[in-house]
């Protein structure tokens, strides 16, 4: 049941978005953070073949089945996380980047991230004053079970606090910020280690940016309730 082919006609010169029929898995091996279980990864391969041409494009990605939830606890004010329905005690650290000259090799990422896993961490927070981490960073977080808290590029010091007080209106070009944010989400969204997007470090982005980010990143209600919704799908035969 993990193989499917669909026939399509795509008009000349067009750019279309297509949703494949969902693939069913019975008791899939789940992806767990470091210390809670295995980091089980499936390999997803998509190919498109064109009549009279052959294979036209292919794409592959490691994919982990997991559900991450988080909410602010009303009594402590802290953010609590659950992975696959199980509460997790977060042992995390701040991460900015591997190298100030941006020599970001796969080998270095693997070494750095394995080191954090060996320290018994289960989360890394990518600080808003640094970079949106690269797919290679996320790849090794997928492999070693590090959840990632990724911030967008806002800091208290440069965006409204600091000494002297800085400009609270963020970057000059808000549309550019949102374009970069949306592109970054598309770049990283398939990684199971990606746990949480945050507007910035110690500061809320300007209202228009913050509202747009919250709207764009809102979880679809279907996924919000799916684990509780026992009757919305056909029963297993």
């Amino acid at each position: 049941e993990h193989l499917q082919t669909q026939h399509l006609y795509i008009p000349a010169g067009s750019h279309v978005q297509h949703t494949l029929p969902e693939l069913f898995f019975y008791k899939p091996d789940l992806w767990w953070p470091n210390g809670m279980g295995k980091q089980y990864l499936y390999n997803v391969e998509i190919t498109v073949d064109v009549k009279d041409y052959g294979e036209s494009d292919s794409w592959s990605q490691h994919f982990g089945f997991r559900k991450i939830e988080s909410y602010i606890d009303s009594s402590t004010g802290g953010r609590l996380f659950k992975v696959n329905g199980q509460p997790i005690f977060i042992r995390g650290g701040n991460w900015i980047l591997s190298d100030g000259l941006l020599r970001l090799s796969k080998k270095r990422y693997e070494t750095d991230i394995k080191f954090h896993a060996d320290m018994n961490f289960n989360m890394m927070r990518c600080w808003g004053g640094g970079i949106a981490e690269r797919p290679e960073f996320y790849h090794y977080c997928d492999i070693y079970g590090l959840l990632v808290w990724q911030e967008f590029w806002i800091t208290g010091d440069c965006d409204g606090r600091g000494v002297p007080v800085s400009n609270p209106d963020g970057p000059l070009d808000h549309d550019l910020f949102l374009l970069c944010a949306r592109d970054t989400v598309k770049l990283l969204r398939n990684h199971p280690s990606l746990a949480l997007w945050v507007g910035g470090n110690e500061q809320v982005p300007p209202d228009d940016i913050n509202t747009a980010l919250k709207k764009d990143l809102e979880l679809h209600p279907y996924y919000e309730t799916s684990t509780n919704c026992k009757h919305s799908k056909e029963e297993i035969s």
Partner: protein
Amino acid sequence: MAAVIGKKVLDEEWLAARSTEVDLSGIELTTTHPPTSDQAPWMEAVVPGTVLATLLKNKLVPDPFYGLENESILDIADSGREYYTFWFFTTFECKLSTDQHVDLNFHAINYSAEVYLNGHKKVLPKGMFRRHSIDITDILNSDGENLLAVLVYPPDHPGRIPPEGGQGGDHEIGKDVAAQYVEGWDWMAPIRDRNTGIWDEVSLSVTGPVKMVDPHLVSSFFDDYKRAYLHTTVELVNQSNSVAECSLNIQVGAEQEGDIFLV
């Protein structure tokens, strides 16, 4: 020989030179006057990497992370943006067969750039955290040998570092959509070039008439994780002038990567 479909990473044999020391235009560099590594001011470049990484590789600056050596490197606030505006140059082979298309992809550039390929110019707009993809099918050289030059400009607002340092220097970098730590923080000295450069992967992707863009995978769970569904959405681009009759295939396997074992 025609290219097979797939990705080819361009991370070797790049040259670089300070823009103020190059008298040639991008068109000349990628047609009549391509640079060579033994020709000043050209030097071996680090791509992906920053201008400072290239200067360090060529021993033109000391290692900024060793002792107080960073103090002896000229800061962009004092040098001006032109000092850290650099050309990057490479060549690549690519010969397409009928109905093939090729994109030139930049995963990330800081902060903006002009791209010249075989004498044709394309502008890469501002923003440190965005991908750029250019369809270069129609501007490849017929003999398969292609000349690529990229002029990379630093952030628009690199700022100035106050004598006392401070968190994010004078905060000017916050006007751009770029990493802010480069003006220095309590944990980091200022980065003199503000991380200007082609700082993530450059690649070519060869496809047939139809290409995929940004597939999206999402899972949903039912019955206490006994049942799961994988939802897949993909953008499809038909680059040809006729309707494409396609079959779209998805396969999910349980392979692990290379020498990675789960214990």
